[in-house]
């Protein structure tokens, strides 16, 4: 993998000259996005003093373990990591439009160079069974029709979104909050190795940067910046996903939310977004409708029959032969969770029989235990 001369120069400015990325971008924009002019401006004038800007992202490249930018370039070349600068043609246009785009991107996997229509899926790290199903369903179907799924490579919703979208045409892009050589959380090692095959892993942080708490809000602006829209699945009232949505709105992106149970605290954030005007998503069509300008052009062909599998899901319960007792319990368990005690009392069936039926329904994927000893329907 080669690095462009522009990116090497920018790395030199940021690392050796200790210029803040925000400062660089502002100069870049002042110079009407003329790369040579900006780079020369920083290279020719030494001891420039810059005003501190409160809108700068709260990070800089001064705190790092690298002696010089040359070391970083050596490291990058040795480990087959790509380096993309804002001055390169391959830099995603959509990202260039945001306030303070990252001047440099380290990446693995080439999908980032050919960015097309993409959607971000964000959500809770501690998701419920429902959130998991929703994330998998949505990202799988999006990827199958060629939409790139962008997410944050965190645990929970993020990792399910990546997993499900890797199989499809669209693939997935993971945006890291740490250096590209650091795997965080460690459980995602497998995903980390797999994503570059059908997508890419991207970060603006220098190699070796630890996953600091402050990195994540900064990373979130890239997630939303890379996409046309953001879908939120299961977000608590004050969560990283909600921050991403606020950034997305500032970046003029569409925000959509998947609703959940009104009784579950893990959906409060999503519901607030819907109240404030986010589009409610309960199928892929809702997402495509929102982007009819794009989808009309790109995804017109074969759209109708791509979602055959969803109808299968709805009819699933009729495929399994349920006995009268099983049906009685299945009908009783609504979409709001019911405890075993309630089920026993309602059905007046023996406890052991109820337990057997619940396990049977669960094995067949009709119900799910969504908190201790409480079951709700999946379909």
């Amino acid at each position, binding site marked *: 993998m080669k690095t462009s001369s522009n990116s090497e120069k920018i790395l030199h400015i940021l690392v050796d000259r200790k210029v803040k990325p925000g400062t660089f971008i502002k100069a870049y924009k002042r110079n009407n996005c003329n790369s040579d002019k900006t780079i020369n401006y920083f290279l020719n004038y030494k001891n420039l003093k810059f005003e501190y800007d409160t809108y700068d992202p709260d990070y800089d490249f001064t705190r790092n373990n690298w002696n010089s930018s040359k070391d970083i370039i050596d490291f990058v070349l040795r480990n087959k990591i790509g380096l993309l600068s804002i001055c390169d043609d391959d830099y995603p246009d959509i990202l260039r439009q945001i306030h303070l785009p990252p001047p440099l991107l380290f990446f693995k996997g080439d999908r980032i160079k050919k960015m097309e229509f993409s959607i971000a899926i964000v959500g809770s790290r501690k998701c419920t069974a429902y959130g998991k199903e929703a994330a998998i369903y949505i990202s799988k179907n999006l990827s199958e029709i060629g939409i790139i799924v962008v997410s944050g490579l965190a645990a*929970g919703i993020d990792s399910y979104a990546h997993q499900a979208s890797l199989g499809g045409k669209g693939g997935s892009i993971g945006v890291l909050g740490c250096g590209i050589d650091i795997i965080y959380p460690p459980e995602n090692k497998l995903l980390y190795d797999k994503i570059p095959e059908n997508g890419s892993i991207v970060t603006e942080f220098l190699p070796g940067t630890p996953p600091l708490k402050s990195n994540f809000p900064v990373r979130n602006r890239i997630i939303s910046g890379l996409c046309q829209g953001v879908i939120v699945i299961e977000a608590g009232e004050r969560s990283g996903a909600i921050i991403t949505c606020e950034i997305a709105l500032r970046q003029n992106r569409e925000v959509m939310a998947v609703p959940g149970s009104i009784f579950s605290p893990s959906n409060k954030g999503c519901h607030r977004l819907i109240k404030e005007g986010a589009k409610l998503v309960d199928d892929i069509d809702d997402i495509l409708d929102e982007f009819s300008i794009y989808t009309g052009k790109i995804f017109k062909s074969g759209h109708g029959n791509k979602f055959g599998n969803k109808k299968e899901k709805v009819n699933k319960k009729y495929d399994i032969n349920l006995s009268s007792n099983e049906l009685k319990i299945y009908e009783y368990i609504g979409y709001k969770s019911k405890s075993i005690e309630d089920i026993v009392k309602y059905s007046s069936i023996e406890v052991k029989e109820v337990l057997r039926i*619940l396990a049977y329904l669960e*094995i067949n994927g009709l119900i799910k235990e969504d908190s*201790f000893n409480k079951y709700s329907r999946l379909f």
Partner: protein
Amino acid sequence: MISIDYAGYIFDFLHKYIYHLFMIFKLDSFTLEGIDAVTVSVEVHLSRGLPEFTIVGLPGKAVNESRQRVRSAVINSGFDFPVKKIIVNLSPADIKKERSFYDLPIALSVLAASGQIQSEVWNKSYFVGELSLNGDINPVSGLISMAEEALNTGKTFFFVPYSIADQVSFISDIKIIACKNLLEAVEALSGRGKIEKFIYKSRNIADRHFCYGFDFKEVKGQFKAKRALEIAVGGRHNIMLVGPPGSGKTMLAKRAVTIMPDLNLEECIDVTKIYSLYKKNVSGLIRERPFRNPHHTISRMGLIGGGINPGPGEISLAHRGILFLDEFSQFPRNFIEDLRQPLENREIVITRNHSSYTFPCNFMLIVATNPCYCGYFGNDSKKCVCSLREIKRFWKKMSGPVMDRMDMRVLVDRLPETSFVDTEYGESSETIKSRINKCMNMQIQRFEGRNIVYNSEAGIDTINEWLKDNKKIRDLISTVSRKYNLTARGMTSILKVSRTIADLEASISIKEHHVIEALNYRVCFNYDNDSDAPINFI
């Protein structure tokens, strides 16, 4: 002639004199090595010289101090304490003697050596007992082990403290002489035929009623946990209860003893034997199943057993009963690992540099834990504040071999208000116990002639037998294991539990619905599936 008579007179005189002055006397007592008793002879030698009272033969602190107790007890019982040089030897001299067994034998041998009592039963008897200063005989530990050893050596009488004589009253082959104080012991020994008066009458142990004071019917709701405990006790499966604080984990675990089958005589003896090592005042045979609930600040020796004079730990005290480890996550990890071997072998061998001791520990393990540090993970009434990383760390501590030995994992939630105000009682312990008795009988019949008693102990051969002519089950197991990503151990657990469920229904073969119910107790909490956090629904 005169000279010869005179010489004979002197000889006679000297003989008697010497006989009295250099008297040696010997009787038998015991010491404890681990759970086993070993015969110890108490030898006393009175000789002329400066008055002195010494005990040799590796006496411990308590044994050494017995000099003072013996002296006071002898004097206060109205005897003379010889003003002689007294040497007491406890033989074999190379075994360390601890505890206060030797007060009574030392006192009696001193009295005998000084000619104050004579008896014909000295070498037919064993003696143990601690003396108080006024001559009363206080209880000692390890009485059953000693009685068993006494039986082996074929002696007739065993002198024991009166207050704990009930412990050994079931033994009919040896005569238990229960004495309240030193005077009684002397009376029993010296009077002709008087010893019969002191023989302790054995009581019929079946007469004694016991009651645990709590019952399963007091538990409201928690149907799944109750059913799971029934199965767990039925097949002696180890079980883990997971739930938020206040969900009734401890209450449930405590009641598991009430549904265990009653101890038979042999088991009673086993249990009492261990308890009599642990505390002195065990008034009779213990008929209740032990329920041990050690706090997590317990020391390693306290849990496993050991110490300078190795004694039983909590795992042995829970022998034939239940060991309940509440707040399992708070136990240090190495303690948890220590449980592995005892769980497998049903006994613990404690090896110290001089010898090794074996204690039985055939217990059923119940552990209870919160689902995370804050305690509310997976609970919909209160939100958990732990991060996913913390939750994983929490569970990582418990992963591995000990988790593998948990055949059943059950989630227990807080009781909803509707169940709490429900005044109907559930099934009583008696009802459940009768079902479990039947289940046990099935197992005893099945495993006759093998080395195992419970389903949970079944090895791979036995499980293969169950599966052999049962294609339906084989198919079901393979489907299920693929779906839930079960390991071999996970599948084995499910099969063992389903066998117990089938036994509870008195079914000869395992049916599909048994396996499906068994899945309930494994899959909801499947640590083997490590792609996610331990609890499936996050």
